[in-house]
C-alpha cells in the first residue's frame, strides 16, 4: 500500500506551526498538521467558569505537557548523571492544539536589533577579547530591517496592544525609546496600566529611565484580525498564563489562526498524533515524510511529504532532529556538530516590594501582557565596558493576575516561616499590599551547555529522552546581579516599606524544582555558517533541505525579551522565502 502523500506535513499545532500552515495553504499546498496532544478549542477549554479554576488549570496543569508520556533529563555539568524531569516545575511546555500559544501570557515583543547581531556588536564596541572563554556568542544571520515586515504582519494577526515610539522615522508616542523604527503602529492602543505598573512608571521616569507599556497580545479593544478572526476586549480577569482565555482576548493559534485555517479544504489537522521521526532517504539529505503514532489506537502511520516543517516546542524540535538523524549531533568535547548546540534559557528573578498597609495592590487584577517596563539595562542599550559582562535585562512590573494557591505555596522561605500563624499573617499582608518587579534577562550560550540524547531513560514510545546539560554561568549571574541592583532605588521611590531583592548567586546551579520561565531556546540555531548552526538564515536545515525547523530553537542566545513575537516573525520570514523562492525551485536557499 502506498503512503498518503501530502505537499507539506507540519509537526505541532502551536504558533510556529499554525503560521506555517496558514502560509502554505495560502500558497495552494495541501497540508497535514500533526499534534500529539488533544484537540482544544475555546468553547471547551475556555468556557467560563470552569476555565478559571486555579486548581484544575495552573496547579494541576491542565494545558501542559503530560510528562508520563515523555520528558527530558537534566544535569548541571557534563560529569553528572542527568536525572528525569519527573514533575513539571522549572518550565512548562504546552500540549494539545495551540501548544504553548494557548497557555502563554501574551507579552508580545519584537526584538532588540543589536540582539540579532550580538557577536558583531560586542566585538565592534569592546573587541573580541571581551567575549569570555567558552561562550558561543553568535549572530542570527538576519537583520531587524529584513524581519520588520514580518513583525508587523504578526502583530496584525495577534491583535497586539502597545505604545509605539517611532513609525516610519517619526517619533509618534511615548513608547520604548530604545525600540527600532516601525513600518506601522500597533493595531491596538496599549492596555491600561495596573496600579502597580503606574507607580513603577512614575518612579522609573523620575529616576531618569524610559518606561513604556509592554506590548501585549491581550486585546485592549474589540479586534478583527487579518484572517477575519475576532477578539474581545480584555477585562483584566488575570487568567492568561496557564489558561485558555474565556473572553477571546488573548491571542492564540486557536483564536487567531485556526478558525480560518480549519475552513481551508487543503488543510487537515490530526490531533493525538505523536511524530516518532522524520523519514529520510538513504542519502540523509532528503526527507520523504514522517511516521507518527496515533496515541489512542497505538497505530503507526507513515505520511509521504515533499516538505517537512518542525514547529513543535523548542526541545521537541531538537529531539526529533536527533532521533531522525537530521544534521550532525553536537559534541562539546570535539566542538563539532550542530544539533544540540547553543542550548539557552533566560535569567529571570522576581523581587518583591511591600507598600504601606493602607495601599492595596489587588494582585488578582491583571493581564498576561499588561505592565510597564524599562529597557535601559537591556541588550546593548548601556555601556557594558566597565561592567564586563555580555547581555542585559528589561525590568518590569507585569501584574498578570496572582491566584491564591500559587501565592500561598510560594510564600515564606528565605528565613521567613513557611507555615503557622506568622506565615499566614505574612501571606495575607503580602497578597494584599505587595507587588513584584522582574529582571527578565538574557542567557548566553556556552560550549558545555547543550542538548543530546540520554543514554538511560526512554519515553513511552521507546525512544531515548532528550538530555539537557545546563547551569548558570558567571557572566549571566553578574549581569542579573547588576540589573537587580538597579531596581532598588526605583522600589524606594515607589514608597516601599520593605523589599526583597532576588538575584542569582555566584556558583548557584540551575534548580529544576521552581518555576522560572518556559522560554527555552537554541539547540537547533540559525546562522550563516553550517559548522556552527543547524539551520540557515531561513530556518532551513543545512543538511536536509526540505526540512524547516521553526521556533525558539533557532535563537543563538536567550534574549531579554519574551520569545513568542520573535518566533512568529521568524515563521512568517521563513514562510515568505519558501513561498517566493523555495517552492519554485526546491533545494538549499543558501549554499553551504
Amino acid at each position, binding site marked *: 500500500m502506498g503512503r498518503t502523500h501530502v505537499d507539506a506535513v507540519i509537526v505541532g499545532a502551536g504558533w510556529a506551526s499554525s503560521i506555517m500552515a496558514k502560509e502554505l495553504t495560502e500558497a495552494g499546498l495541501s497540508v497535514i498538521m500533526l499534534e500529539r496532544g488533544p484537540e482544544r478549542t475555546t468553547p471547551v477549554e475556555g468556557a467560563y467558569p470552569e476555565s478559571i479554576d486555579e486548581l484544575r488549570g495552573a496547579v494541576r496543569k491542565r494545558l501542559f505537557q503530560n510528562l508520563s508520556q515523555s520528558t527530558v533529563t537534566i544535569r548541571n555539568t557534563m560529569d553528572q548523571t542527568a536525572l528525569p524531569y519527573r514533575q513539571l516545575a522549572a518550565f512548562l511546555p504546552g500540549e494539545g492544539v495551540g501548544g504553548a500559544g494557548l497557555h502563554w501570557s501574551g507579552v508580545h515583543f519584537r526584538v532588540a536589533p543589536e540582539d540579532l547581531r550580538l557577536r558583531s556588536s560586542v566585538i565592534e564596541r569592546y573587541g573580541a577579547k571581551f567575549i569570555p572563554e567558552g561562550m558561543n556568542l553568535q549572530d542570527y544571520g538576519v537583520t531587524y530591517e529584513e524581519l520588520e515586515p514580518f513583525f508587523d504582519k504578526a502583530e496584525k494577526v495577534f491583535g497586539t496592544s502597545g505604545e509605539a515610539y517611532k513609525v516610519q522615522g517619526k517619533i509618534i508616542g511615548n513608547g520604548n525609546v530604545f525600540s527600532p523604527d516601525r513600518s506601522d503602529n500597533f493595531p491596538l492602543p496599549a492596555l491600561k496600566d495596573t*496600579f502597580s505598573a503606574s507607580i513603577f512608571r512614575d518612579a522609573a521616569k523620575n529616576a531618569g529611565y524610559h518606561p513604556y507599556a509592554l506590548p501585549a497580545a491581550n486585546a485592549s479593544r474589540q479586534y478583527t484580525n487579518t484572517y477575519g478572526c475576532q477578539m474581545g476586549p480584555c477585562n483584566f*480577569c488575570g487568567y492568561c498564563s496557564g489558561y485558555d482565555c474565556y473572553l477571546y482576548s488573548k491571542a492564540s493559534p486557536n483564536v487567531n489562526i485556526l478558525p480560518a485555517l480549519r475552513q481551508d479544504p487543503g488543510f487537515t489537522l490530526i490531533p493525538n498524533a505523536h511524530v516518532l521521526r522524520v523519514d529520510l532517504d538513504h542519502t540523509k539529505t532528503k526527507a520523504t515524510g514522517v511516521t507518527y503514532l496515533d496515541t489512542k489506537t497505538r497505530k503507526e502511520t507513515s505520511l509521504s511529504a515533499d516538505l517537512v516543517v518542525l514547529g513543535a516546542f523548542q526541545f521537541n524540535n531538537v529531539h526529533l532532529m536527533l532521533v531522525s538523524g537530521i544534521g550532525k549531533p553536537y559534541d562539546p568535547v570535539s566542538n563539532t556538530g550542530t544539533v544540540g548546540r547553543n542550548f539557552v534559557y533566560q535569567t529571570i528573578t522576581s523581587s518583591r516590594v511591600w507598600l504601606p498597609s493602607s495601599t492595596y495592590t489587588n494582585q488578582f487584577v491583571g493581564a498576561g501582557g499588561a505592565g510597564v517596563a524599562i529597557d535601559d539595562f537591556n541588550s546593548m542599550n548601556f555601556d557594558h565596558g566597565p561592567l564586563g559582562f555580555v547581555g542585559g535585562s528589561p525590568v518590569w512590573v507585569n501584574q498578570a493576575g496572582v491566584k491564591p494557591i500559587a501565592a500561598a505555596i510560594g510564600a515564606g522561605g528565605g528565613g521567613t516561616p513557611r507555615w503557622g500563624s506568622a506565615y499566614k499573617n505574612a501571606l495575607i499582608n503580602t497578597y494584599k499590599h505587595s507587588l513584584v518587579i522582574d529582571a527578565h534577562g538574557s542567557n548566553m550560550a556556552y560550549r558545555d551547555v547543550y542538548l543530546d540524547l540520554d543514554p538511560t531513560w526512554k519515553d513511552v514510545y521507546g525512544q531515548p529522552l532528550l538530555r539537557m546539560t545546563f547551569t548558570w554561568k558567571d557572566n549571566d549571574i553578574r549581569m542579573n546581579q547588576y540589573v537587580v541592583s538597579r531596581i532598588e532605588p526605583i522600589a524606594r521611590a515607589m514608597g516601599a516599606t520593605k523589599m526583597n531583592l532576588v538575584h542569582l548567586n555566584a556558583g548557584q546551579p540551575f534548580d529544576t524544582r521552581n518555576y522560572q520561565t518556559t522560554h527555552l531556546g537554541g539547540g537547533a540555531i540559525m546562522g550563516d555558517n553550517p559548522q556552527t548552526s543547524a539551520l540557515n538564515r531561513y530556518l532551513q536545515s543545512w543538511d536536509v533541505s526540505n526540512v524547516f525547523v521553526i521556533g525558539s530553537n533557532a535563537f543563538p542566545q536567550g534574549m531579554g525579551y519574551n520569545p513568542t513575537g520573535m518566533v512568529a516573525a521568524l515563521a512568517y520570514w521563513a514562510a515568505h522565502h519558501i513561498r517566493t523562492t523555495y517552492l519554485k525551485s526546491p533545494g538549499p536557499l543558501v549554499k553551504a
Partner: protein
Amino acid sequence: MEPTLNRPLRRSFVKGLLGTTSFWMASGNASWTAALAAEAAHPYQPTFFDTMEYRFVEAASERLFPADDNGPGAKALGAAEFIDRQMQTPYARGENWYMSGPFQQGPANLGYQLPFAPRDLYRKGIAGVEHYTRQHYGKGFADLPAVQQDEILTALEGGSVQLGEVPGRVFFEQLRTNTLEGTFADPLYGGNRGLGGWIMLGFPGAKADFMDWVNQEGAPYPLAPVSIAGETA
C-alpha cells in the same frame, strides 16, 4: 484524564443557569447556607484515608495553616476533605508525572526522584510520622498538644527525620502543598469552605472581570468573593 469534579449534580445544575442574569440575582446565600448546614450535620466520610490517617491530616494541616485572628484554619476550611478527595484523582496516582525507572537519587536541585505517587507518599508518610510520634512522645500525632505537633512538623521540614522509605522533608512538602491547595482552591473540591480562604486574602474568586478596577490608586477591591458554583460569602 482530567481531574473529575466531584459534585456532578450541582455542577450541571449550575451550568444550565450560569448564563442567566436571574441566576446571579437569585442565588443568594440561603440555598448555600442550607447546603453547608447539611454538610455539618453529616460530616464528610473519607474514602482514601482511614480514621487514624484522616485525624492526622486534619491535625497536621491545622498546624500548617492554623485558625487565628486572621480567620479560620485548614481544619474548618475542609483541607482534609479536599486532600482525601484529591486522592481519587489521576494526580494522586502519579499519572501526570514521569514515573519510569530506573529511580536514581541525585542532588536536590535536580528534583523529585522517588518511585512514589502522592497516594504512596501519604500512606507511607503518615505511618512513618505516627511511628516516630509514638516512639518519641508516646501518643499519636493528633492527640499531642499543638506545641509538640509543631516540633514534629519542624523536624520534618528541616529534613532531620526519615519516614521509612520517604524522607520527612518530601512528605512535609507534599502535605504543605496540598493543605494550601485545600485552603484556597474553589470550594468545588471540598476545601475553602464558605470561601473562608478567599475572604482572608481578599481574593474575589470566580468574578474574573476587573475592567473597572485596573487602577483605583491602591483602594481595596470592594466586593466579596463568589465561587464557580455561584456560592457567595
